């Protein structure tokens, strides 16, 4: 087998603007492989992104693509999807874009369980604006706006989206490329709000400031701190420390928003007859 990727990429826009070793490229590549694997119709697929390094992904992907404002991609995507439920709508966001300024849209998209696939490239930093801390920057770490170490605590995004109502929740890493492809494919095929956190690395604006000077080091760190969900539950509390589970963390069959709305239309129009 080989992975088809060329036709989903806007080749003429490459090389992309991401720095050497940036995890966003790997994640975008494997998202594309997941799209290919899921066999969704590229002509009926829309990619919506926010603002940030992550947000630039939409420009490289050969679909209908929309680069929006900072934090609002899910709200734009909600309009796109509800207006035409036939479309596959993918949202690409960052940890700042998706959990700071865009946190409300994330939890409300999840609450509605509208059929979007949200890919959050979590590099634990505001990459694009050069390294301010995000809600996902680990407590204690350094950032340009946390010169004395970050005192903010972090979300567990799987918990947050679960509590909000998402019906598919998964986490992968730029390190584990094959798992990523599987997760993306499964999330794309799931009907309902699919939230996928993809751990990325920003060697330039996060790594350098926190003792991890190369992408390779950061990937090794991802490798060492991630545990497949199949093994996760068998770990002791001690063993879980500093680690996080990856894979499909939650999946549920649940009424989807645009389908429920279609039922309203059907019944109202039926009545009007």
């Amino acid at each position, binding site marked *: 087998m080989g992975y088809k990727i060329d036709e989903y990429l806007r080749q003429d826009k490459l090389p992309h603007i991401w720095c050497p070793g940036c995890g966003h490229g790997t994640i975008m590549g494997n998202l594309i492989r997941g799209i290919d694997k899921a066999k969704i119709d590229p002509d009926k697929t829309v990619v919506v992104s926010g603002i940030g390094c992550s947000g630039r992904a939409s420009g490289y992907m050969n679909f*209908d693509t929309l680069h929006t404002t900072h934090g609002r991609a899910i709200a*734009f*995507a*909600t309009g*796109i999807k509800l*207006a035409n439920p036939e*479309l596959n709508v993918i949202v690409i966001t960052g940890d700042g874009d998706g959990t700071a300024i865009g946190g409300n849209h994330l939890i409300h998209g999840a609450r509605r369980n509208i059929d979007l696939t949200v890919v959050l490239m979590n590099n634990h930093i505001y990459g694009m604006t050069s390294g301010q801390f995000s809600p996902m920057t680990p407590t204690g770490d350094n950032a340009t706006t946390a010169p004395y170490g970050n005192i903010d605590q972090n979300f567990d995004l799987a918990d947050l989206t679960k509590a909000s109502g998402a019906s598919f929740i998964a986490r992968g890493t730029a390190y584990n490329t094959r798992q990523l492809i599987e997760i993306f494919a499964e999330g794309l095929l799931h009907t309902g709000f699919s939230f996928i956190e993809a751990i990325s690395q920003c060697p330039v604006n996060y790594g350098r400031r926190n003792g991890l000077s190369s992408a390779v080091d950061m990937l090794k760190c991802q490798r060492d701190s991630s545990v497949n969900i199949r093994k996760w539950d068998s770990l002791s509390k001690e063993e879980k420390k500093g680690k996080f589970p990856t894979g499909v963390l939650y999946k549920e069959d649940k009424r989807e928003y645009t389908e429920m709305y279609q039922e309203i239309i059907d019944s109202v129009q039926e009545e009007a007859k």
Partner: protein
Amino acid sequence: MKDKIKLLQGDEAVVEGAIAAGARFFAGYPITPASEIAEGLAEKLPIYGGKFIQMEDELASMACVIGASLSGLKSITATSGPGFSLKQENLGLGMMIEVPCVVVNVQRVGPSTGLPTSPSQGDVMQAKWGTHGDHPVIALAPSSVKETYELTVNAFNFAERFRTPVILLLDEIVGHMREKVVLPDEEDIEIWNRKKPEVGPENFNPYEETDGLVPPMPNYGEGYRYHTTGLFHDRTGFPRGTNEDAKNLMDRLMAKIEGNMDIISLYEEDIRDDDEIIVLAYGSTMRSAINAINQAREAGIKAGWIKLKTIWPFPVDYIKEVGRRAKALIIPELNRGQIIKEVRENVFGNAEVHGINKYDGTLIKPEEILNMIQEVK
């Protein structure tokens, strides 16, 4: 025809007008005095196969409406001052990426929470300058329920024809007033739809100037696979970060509006050859103005009126012309003087320009205008 006569609120007329214009999507967040628009469309849209969604806030509502329009549905949102402030960032994106949609602001007294149930025309300047950076704006202001219906249709037509968000500025009086409206027959309503590309995806450039400066626009899902961004972009839709692209795009965005003033600029006048005093108004204030002019004329005063239905772009040339003829211009507004600034900017020497301003939630009474007419005559 009898069943087409209706007692409607202005807000309800927006609902009727939107449906008639082909609107099939609403996203919004409730706020007095605009909630009736949401409520009406929540009920009506599904009957026509359209969609209604209440979003978590106004920022999301504006985003959602832009998204829906990109998917191909004529889309509308409605709010009042506080929500209009929140929509500004995404409204700017809509203007930049040229997405047709209608944004209704039923004005109440600001700033801030202000007087939430009282009428105002305080957001007129905000409609033009509310989002950062220069940008093109079309804003319409009806003065009656009937006009609300008509201008709602116009708003959708302008939005689609010029591929841009259009702002419909009601004031609370017009929004909540009930009045007789005769709804036109469907055949009698002129409807514009967005221009679709005539070329296939291979040869398509989403931001290519075509005749009228308005690029054609495919729906998402039609195979064009094009890119759209709030960064300055070239005709391919992609950002190159060049100064040339910024200038070219901005010039086209402004030109497509300013170059079509003959279509976009709607106003009415009742000015007789020898009228010397002109009252220029818009929105509910117009009603007082007409009443006052009628009284003035009965008293033998040479007075006439101009009713602006399109507020932005401001009809610069027309007002310059009027300013050359008139002895005095009187501008009554439910604010501290907003449109009067445009008039002052464009009227030189000849005509005095006087404002009548109320910003306390009360209306300008006909006699207040009449008094001013008598003063300046």
